[in-house]
């Protein structure tokens, strides 16, 4: 529940998840190693390893003996589904709380969403 200052290994796991979701880390390709992650994020290798373990436990990464960790086939779709499931709670809810605080009703918010959607080029 605590959002800020979340455990470092979760942040690292999430950064890899993001790469998988946005496609920059393709399925079946090699995931960054513990040491690469440690050097990149400037964290203790144990923390980086823990981040990778989280992803392996979720089945997003698969260990190949002596070669390293690879992105599991279907990982991207799995993550997208997972994120869709929490989208309302994670984004819409705080949006509506803030909207209520500043006196915007649902209709006005929807109008703004549609307006912005065309701006960022998302499909409506």
């Amino acid at each position, binding site marked *: *529940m*605590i*959002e*800020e*200052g*979340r*455990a*470092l290994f979760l942040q690292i796991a999430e950064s890899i998840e993001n790469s998988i979701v946005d496609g920059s880390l393709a399925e079946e390709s090699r995931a960054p190693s*513990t*040491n690469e992650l*440690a*050097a990149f*994020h*400037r*964290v*203790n*290798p*144990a*923390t980086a390893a823990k981040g990778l373990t989280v992803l392996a436990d979720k089945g997003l990464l698969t260990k190949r003996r002596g070669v390293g960790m690879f992105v599991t086939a279907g990982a991207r779709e799995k993550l997208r589904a997972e994120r869709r499931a929490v989208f309302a709670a994670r984004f819409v809810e705080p949006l509506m709380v803030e909207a209520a605080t500043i006196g915007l009703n649902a209709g006005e918010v929807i109008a703004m969403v549609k307006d912005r959607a065309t701006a960022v080029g998302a499909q409506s």
Partner: protein
Amino acid sequence: MNPVVRARDLVKAYPAGNALDGVGFDLEANTIYGFLGRNGAGKSTTMSIITSQLFATSGTVRVFDEDPYENPRVLGRMCFVRENQKYPESMTTAHALRAASLFYPGWDHDFAERLVADFRLPLKTKVKKLSRGQLSAVGVIIGLCSRAEITFFDEPYLGLDAVARQIFYDRLIADYAEHPRTILMSSHLIDEIADLIERVLVIDGGRIIMDETVEEATSALTRATGPTAALDRLARSHRVLERRTMGSAGALVFHGIPSEAESETATHAGVRLESVGLQESIVHRTAAAATATGPELSPTSMEGALS
């Protein structure tokens, strides 16, 4: 796993009082420890005793299950460059590095060369003519390149600017990843090293008051900010360390993590919950330990704590 260092009941008595007053802890193999505490808390004293440079008044130290005193089998696997390390008469930087390399079979000459370039160290300058930062850099290079199984860094950043400190942290992590070993690093710059270390040892008043993983340390305390009424509810069910109010809102620091239900109620009431960073967590708990041990430490003496 079998610890590489076991310190038990270490007491170091001086006429002015005890520098160490029953210090005990284990160091596990292949772990980076942050050794934290205020000035004069006993960090350097402890490291000196483990390496047999200094003698404890009582208590025991075992390194690799042996007594380190006059024992090359054990001493030769450690490296401890002091914060105010002395170097032999009229030695230059190059001399000092060559001298240190003699005693470590795993010494990495190429790495040393790269670090000299990174830190822009003048090789032909005499060590006693180096600036504070350059002197620290020499110690850092010896510590890193020795690849000693147990390496001690005693406030290695003194006089180093932000760029040089980042270089040190980066090289430390990269080299440690390739060559895991036990590292005990004393530091006042807690937030700078918080991500590098795996465990924290906090010493205060000659005693170890925290010996836990960084995760445990940072999840031990929670800060809540929001309306006073909601904070009151949280305060009733948790041990409060600090409370500040401003108008109808305030901030609360308390022990533990609120339950799922608790945080949901609190969030709905407009309370923001966050875990407390390592530095702040240690400052709070050091202050708490000081008040718990007795009145000899006044609140004002806590000023500049760990800074």
